[in-house]
């Protein structure tokens, strides 16, 4: 068959060798490296006396462990500090470019990559982090790997992979006012479940997707992994190409013109066959709020917490009962009556400039509810922070009683000092609501930046459609 999906094209373009059983050696154009999943890989390379295949294919940044306050002093947690210093040392020893903690380009690896043009359309991109799927928004094949494969990619610039199946998710039509990329992707996960994309690469398409900015597309692809798919994709169009024009690592001059011509081909052909297709009607998507401990436990803002008794599958029913207990919620409780203690706006899902603008437009001229003990804004990178400050967004947040922090992963996974206390409930723009994810005993509700900001003002979840 000559018609190819976008995934087929990206795959075929990177096959070095295919074994008889279908396993292929795939060339990796870019590896992003951070402090948490790389130290053991460098250590193994060192012990085996191996060198990276090509140092220039790698780019490193510390993000998971870095503090979001007081960067001038050393990281207080000695174990976290050692891990960040180990990344510095490894990058120096192996000759890999790193944006260190004092560099304005430092940020969450998945924000920094596209921002620098270090992850480009048509590339294969890996990182020891499951949210590497984010970079698929630019028509690149990007997926998370474990530390053994970080080491393998360092040493050989290749990985052995079996091709996934093709899954097309079309979101037709236009979303209503106040509905964002985050609501779209949460609605998709609610529809297909957290294992719905397992074994597939998902291509997101349809007007509601192509209408999104690059930032919005990144939010959608970011959470492909929450739907079980290692990689998510959006076809290249003018929005993609405009986004990459003039970025520091983007091609220059003649190369840019060549790249632009090649990138125009990065879309699924008419008539390409997908193994699975799901369509959603964008107009029906309401603001989404998760109520449980898995991203698929999600409902619309005007809904109620579901009743486990209505679930016929006994394993799922038990999961719901466990989740309600952990979350401290009763079934049939209206979502918009759930009171929150903290707000976290940040993470590789929602910490880009567009996200901060959306949140700022909600809090402008208002005050954080007294019942909310902390509302924090953590920009995705030093450059996002700089841009936001240029636009005066930091002042809007600070005036509203929100905290304006330094860039990093922060309370998305709470490896640094930013965490929920046991029993605290958070409106969070991150990607995972697992037990303990944001702190031992912490309770996470995943929402869009505007919804999180509004919850911080009202003290409980509100329907953002009534505010815009």
């Amino acid at each position: 068959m000559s018609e190819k999906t976008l995934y087929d094209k990206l795959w075929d373009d990177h096959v070095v060798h295919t074994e008889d059983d279908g396993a292929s050696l795939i060339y990796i154009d870019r590896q992003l490296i951070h402090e948490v999943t790389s130290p053991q890989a460098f250590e193994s390379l060192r012990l085996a006396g191996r060198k990276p295949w090509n140092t220039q294919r790698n780019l490193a940044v510390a993000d998971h462990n870095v503090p979001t306050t007081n960067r001038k002093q050393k990281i207080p947690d000695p174990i976290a500090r050692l891990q960040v210093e180990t990344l510095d040392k490894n990058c120096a020893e192996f000759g890999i470019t790193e944006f260190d903690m004092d560099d304005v380009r430092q940020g969450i690896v998945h924000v920094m990559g596209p921002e620098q043009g270090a992850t480009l359309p048509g590339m294969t991109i890996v990182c020891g982090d499951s949210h590497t799927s984010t970079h698929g928004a630019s028509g690149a094949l990007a997926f998370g790997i474990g530390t053994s494969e970080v080491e393998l990619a360092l040493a050989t610039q290749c990985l052995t992979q079996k091709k996934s199946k093709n899954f097309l998710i079309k979101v037709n039509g236009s979303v209503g006012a106040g509905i964002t990329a985050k609501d779209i992707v949460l609605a998709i996960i609610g529809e297909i479940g957290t294992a719905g994309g397992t074994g597939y690469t998902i291509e997101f398409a349809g007007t509601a997707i192509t209408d999104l900015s690059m930032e919005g597309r990144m939010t959608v692809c970011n959470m492909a992994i929450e739907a079980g798919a290692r990689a998510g994709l959006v076809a290249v169009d003018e929005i993609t190409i405009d986004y990459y024009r003039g970025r520091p690592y983007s091609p220059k001059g003649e190369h840019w013109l060549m790249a632009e011509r090649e990138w125009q081909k990065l879309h699924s052909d008419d008539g390409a066959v997908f193994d699975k297709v799901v369509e959603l009607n964008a107009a029906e998507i309401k603001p989404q709020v998760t109520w449980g401990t898995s991203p698929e436990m999600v409902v619309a803002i005007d809904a109620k917490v579901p009743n486990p008794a209505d679930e016929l599958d006994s394993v799922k029913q038990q999961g719901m009962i466990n989740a309600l207990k952990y979350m401290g919620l009763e079934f049939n409780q209206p979502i918009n009556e759930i009171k929150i203690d903290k707000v976290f706006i940040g993470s590789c899902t929602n910490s880009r400039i567009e996200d901060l603008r959306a949140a700022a437009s909600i809090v402008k001229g208002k005050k954080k509810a007294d019942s909310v003990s902390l509302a924090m804004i953590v920009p995705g990178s030093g450059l996002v922070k700089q841009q936001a400050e240029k636009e005066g967004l930091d002042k809007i947040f600070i005036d509203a009683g929100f905290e304006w922090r330094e860039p990093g992963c922060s309370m998305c996974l709470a490896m640094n000092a930013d965490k929920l206390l046991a029993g605290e409930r958070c409106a969070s723009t991150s990607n995972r609501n697992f037990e303990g994810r944001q702190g031992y005993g912490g309770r996470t509700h995943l929402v869009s930046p505007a919804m999180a900001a509004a919850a911080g003002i009202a003290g409980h979840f509100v329907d953002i459609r009534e505010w815009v």
Partner: protein
Amino acid sequence: MEAFKTVTAKVMPLDRANVDTDAIIPKQFLKSIRRAGFGPYLFDEWRYEDIGEPEMDCSNRPLKKDFVLNNPDYQGAKILLTRENFGCGSSREHAPWALDDYGFRAVIAPSFADIFFNNCFKNGILPIVLSAEVVDSLFKDVAAGYQLVINLGAQTIVTPQGEVIQFDVDAARKYRLYNGLDDIALTLLQADKIKAYEAERAKRAPWLFV
């Protein structure tokens, strides 16, 4: 990596779906720059009453008695029996490192998250997918002292009643796991092909090779 031939071992039932990698090994332990020593913190939040911290001595920590890892009947188990979508969430290889360090050699479930599944094979752990019905029947049978024999070569599981359950495993992964082979050495055997690919690709996409 330890080769996997035949494992005869007790089975521990973890009757939950969607067990995520944050549950398998909470994030505070990911600050370690080492590969070993995660076993005592496996399922830390479900296993202990207190909050675990890296490098903590776990020998005197208060245990959550109702968690299966703390059930005396299943001590010494090397096979974990669990439900759908095991290992979902983050790509942290610390999850299979923790399972391995604790002593698990195999995990049986109706389905696994992709990255975790792949990471298991890199660390001498065999993840086995069986139908939800077969997993359900194993959950019904499993009890103190219940043992299974897993034979990777034959791709079989033999129950104490002598029932033989076949399982699928990708041939390349089986070969590497069965022989405990190093991925890098195997891949570097293809170095000429990688260089040829780069030379050819540099013509098509020269901006990647500046």
